[in-house]
């Protein structure tokens, strides 16, 4: 084995000379410390390997060991509640083993091998099974039942099963005899290469929204279960806050949160907050449905690239069990920068702004792993991908934002001016869009109210109208406008401040059910309607503003608790009273 030795080292890139022992994208161990690496190019003379850890201290002449497998993750019970690095090494275990700092070359098993799980075996001897079939179930957390599935592409007859009981993850639960007569042992885990999407039987049309409880998203720019969304925004516009809010409140069954090249303190915050936060629907801690992948910005750059794939592979695994999974990737720009950095080290010809020419294809491969799927075992599940984008210099024309825009169907553009005014979410309603509204119309009409989409349309018309009017106001002041246009500006203010702006730290306002969203819209539109009537009778708008009813409506988001939605009826009376008082 000594012929495979390191020849050159340049940052995270090492090469091996004159060998044909490696295959493309194969995982290798590099050096005496057995650092994890991946083969990224093979030429006749050189094999190039990117190393997922820092290469300080590595010497030429040290061995490189092939593993014969692509970079894979271990899938099995114990993933939830855990926090991993970019290549599925559990950070808690690393901390136990090595203290506060992460050393290089640590080899910790991804999942706890000693823990006993309560396994209910559902397969029986004689069953014909194919990939995806469930052979055992395990209560992984209070919320989630883990289903052990036959690895895709495996097919055969069950020849042996263990009785239900307590098992460790590496215990053999079932043996299958394939058509060729091979015996396949199934434990509680399976391996899957991170860069290969897990197979499904077919893609289903988008039909359900991912309800987030965030008004500007649910109402104006909804995202579907199985959909894709991008959140671009300069620094300080609240990308991470938005991702956190979605991870906390969206109605997915499982959340995969990938901190890719972001701040260490943020991951600590997610970790702490999610342990304390209780899911309103199940009354269990949010960690019960969450898995975190942390590759902070000071961790090795190559593992940053892997972290995105690791995250989406875990998501697909739970989707195969029939769950709705949402994956938050914060931020995909850091991933793109990792690609650029590695590409630069390989001296590849750069395309735009130094990014490699294959950036768009890599982005599309990632986002295409989202979808609402008919799984191999007949269940239905979805993977929703929400990726943050950090455009350089807040310039949306840069390559990552532009290319991402082509592959996502929901675009939540965060705006610096709104963030400066502490208008959160700082989602700019003129630049953002969602292509899912027509797909979701049936669901909204059936499950909320047919008025929902109609009201939504009216709200966005008001906002569009306001944008137009503001052009005039900016030039000449608001006094020159006729009263009916002033009313639009005032109502738009109610929509902006009272509806779109949402306070993540207010106990009621942090999550708003769709029903309340609808009622709030109805009240605002009623106010608009009555306001128009007053103005049509020739009375000045000043009179209705002085009644204070606009301010009252703006504050209804705080004044009406989520539990007492009947309080909204009072607002109609108040509006009527205010209008009556003018006469």
């Amino acid at each position, binding site marked *: 084995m000594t012929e495979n030795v390191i020849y050159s*080292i340049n940052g995270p890139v090492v090469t091996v000379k004159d060998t044909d022992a490696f295959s493309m994208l194969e995982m290798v161990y590099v050096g005496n410390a057995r650092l994890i690496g991946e083969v990224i190019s093979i030429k006749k003379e050189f094999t190039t390997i990117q190393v997922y850890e820092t290469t300080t201290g590595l010497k030429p002449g040290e061995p490189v060991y092939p593993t014969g497998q692509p970079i894979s993750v271990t899938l099995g019970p114990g993933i939830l509640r855990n926090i991993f690095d970019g290549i599925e090494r559990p950070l808690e275990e690393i901390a136990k083993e090595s203290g506060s700092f992460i050393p290089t070359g640590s080899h910790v098993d991804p999942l706890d091998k000693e823990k006993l799980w309560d396994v209910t075996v559902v397969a029986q001897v004689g069953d014909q099974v194919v990939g995806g079939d469930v052979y055992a179930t395990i209560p992984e957390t209070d919320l989630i039942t883990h289903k052990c599935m036959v690895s895709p592409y495996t097919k055969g007859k069950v020849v042996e099963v263990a009785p239900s009981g307590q098992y460790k993850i590496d215990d053999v639960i079932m043996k299958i005899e394939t058509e060729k007569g091979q015996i396949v042992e199934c434990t509680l885990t399976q391996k899957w290469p991170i860069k290969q999407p897990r197979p499904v039987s077919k893609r289903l049309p988008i039909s359900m929204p991912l309800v987030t409880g965030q008004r500007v998203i649910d109402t104006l720019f909804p995202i579907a279960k199985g959909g894709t969304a991008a959140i671009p925004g300069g620094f300080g516009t609240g990308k991470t806050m938005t991702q956190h809010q979605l991870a906390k409140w969206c109605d997915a069954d499982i959340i995969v949160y990938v901190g890719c090249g972001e701040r260490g*303190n943020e991951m600590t915050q997610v970790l702490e907050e999610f342990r304390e936060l209780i899911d309103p629907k199940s009354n269990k801690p949010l960690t019960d449905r969450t898995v975190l992948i*942390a590759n902070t910005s000071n961790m090795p750059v190559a593992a940053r690239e892997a972290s995105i794939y690791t995250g989406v592979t875990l998501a697909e695994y739970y989707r195969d069990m029939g769950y709705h999974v949402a994956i938050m990737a914060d931020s995909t720009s850091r991933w793109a920068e990792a690609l650029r950095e590695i590409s630069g080290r390989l001296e590849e010809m750069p395309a735009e702004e130094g990014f490699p020419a294959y950036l768009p294809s890599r982005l599309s491969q990632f986002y295409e792993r989202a979808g609402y799927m008919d799984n191999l075992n007949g269940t239905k599940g979805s993977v929703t991908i929400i990726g943050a984008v950090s455009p350089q210099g807040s310039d949306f024309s840069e390559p990552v934002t532009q290319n991402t825009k082509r592959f996502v169907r929901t675009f939540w553009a965060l705006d610096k001016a709104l963030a400066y005014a502490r208008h959160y979410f700082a989602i700019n309603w003129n630049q953002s869009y969602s292509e899912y509204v027509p797909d979701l119309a049936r669901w909204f009409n059936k499950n909320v109210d047919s008025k929902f989409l109609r009201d939504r349309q009216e709200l966005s018309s008001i906002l569009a109208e306001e944008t137009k009017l503001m052009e005039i106001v900016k030039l000449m002041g608001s006094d020159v406008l006729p009263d009916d246009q002033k009313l639009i500006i005032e109502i738009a203010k109610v929509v902006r401040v009272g509806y779109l702006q949402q306070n993540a730290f207010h106990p009621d306002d942090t999550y708003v059910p769709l029903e309340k969203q609808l009622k709030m819209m109805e009240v605002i539109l009623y106010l608009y309607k009555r306001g128009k009537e007053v103005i049509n009778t020739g009375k000045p708008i000043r009179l209705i503003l002085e009644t204070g009813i606009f301010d009252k409506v703006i504050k209804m988001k705080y004044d009406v608790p989520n539990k007492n939605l009947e309080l909204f009826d009072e607002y109609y009376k108040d509006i009527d009273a205010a209008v009556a008082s003018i006469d």
Partner: protein
Amino acid sequence: MSLQYIGLNEINGPLVVLDHVKDASYDEMVELQCKDGSTRLGRIVQIEGERVVVQVFEGTNTLSLSNTKTRLLGHPMELPVSKEILGRVFSGAGKPIDGLGDIYAEKSMDINGQPLNPVARVYPRNYINTGISSIDCLTTLIRGQKLPIFSGSGLPHNQLAVQIVKQAKVADDEGKGFGVVFAAMGVTNDVADYFRRSFEEAGVMQRVVMFLNLSNDPIIERILTPRCALTAAEYLAFEHDMHILVIYTDVTSYCEALREFSSSKGEIPGRKGYPGYLYSDLASLYERAGIAKSAQGSVTQIPILTMPNNDITHPVPDLTGYITEGQITLDAELNAMGIYPPVSVLPSLSRLMKDGIGEGYTRADHSDVSNQLFAAYAHVQDVKALTSVIGEDELSEIDKKYMEFGRLFEKHFINQGFNTNRSIEETLDLGWTLLSVLPKSELDRIDNAVLEQFYNHEKAVTQFGLSEDETIRELQQAVDNG
């Protein structure tokens, strides 16, 4: 280990190339001995078989292909540390330059450090009272945070940093266990001297470690300077449980040094010629702020950077902003108006403040006040833009109030002077008084109950001597009528 290589193969800027080197490891230190007997340090940055590229810290002046002997040292760049480093002055590469001799080292630490495990971090919540209203109220500094100052040429960022050190010390348990690590990267002698004098005047010099790489020092050393400084900071914080404030200036010079170095290596440039890995490189500095569960101490960073041409979208401030937990932005216009500190409130931000303020930390109404001040001041900017088109006379009544508020806010709240130290109560009360200049109905970010408690229009009127005010007229009438 004592194998020496005579001669070099190639010299290119700060890089030298050696051939036929055996057993070199990546990132290893080398010592180069010149003809005159002096030694220089270098680091291996690339290995290709037996061909090794070395970056020489002190520059390659007078080196020739034949007059140099090279020795491999067998370890990566390390900084000798002990508690003695407090009060000492070092060069950018960590050599003592104050004439007091070498450090008697307790241990040597790799200057590149290792990433702090997110599960071993403590989420920072303890706020640092800087005594500066615009920072305490609006962009609260939290212990363990990295909060850079985005500045420009000619702005008083150095004074601000000194004021923070001076006043933060007072608030922090009378300065027990408090230390400052100061790193100068490519700043002038005057600036370094200013910091030294100010630390002496503030009586903290015994608690300061200085690393100086001045503008005429070699650029390669500049790349090491912040790493040495942060290693010293981590040592003091995590092994001696001290609260360390790291101030380093100027990050822009650091990045330029990195660019120069990168282009001499012949790397493919990213934006504006900076190397593609600038983000990762800056992150390897900034991310070394924080608090570890295993120790009582903390590392708080205040990097200072001058934005070239005051352009916040320039790669250096841009990438910095993506890594750090907020920023304090200084503004030339406010500075020209004589306002000190000229903190430009709207683009300034502290990401960690939301969890470190309010009940139990500062005061329950803190977040309300700061949100409302931000919102109101943001509106002031809109009104100002409008004013420049239609003139102030044409503004609506309410917008005139906003203009008034804006002026008072800048004059009384942002402006406070180098020697004024305001407590958090004073700052928040001042915030309320300013908000009370506006009619109550405009304060839409605040819960009614809180508003009732703190809103006091009369106080605002008397404190700021507002005239032609309805309230004052009504009051006057009431008095007149007995």
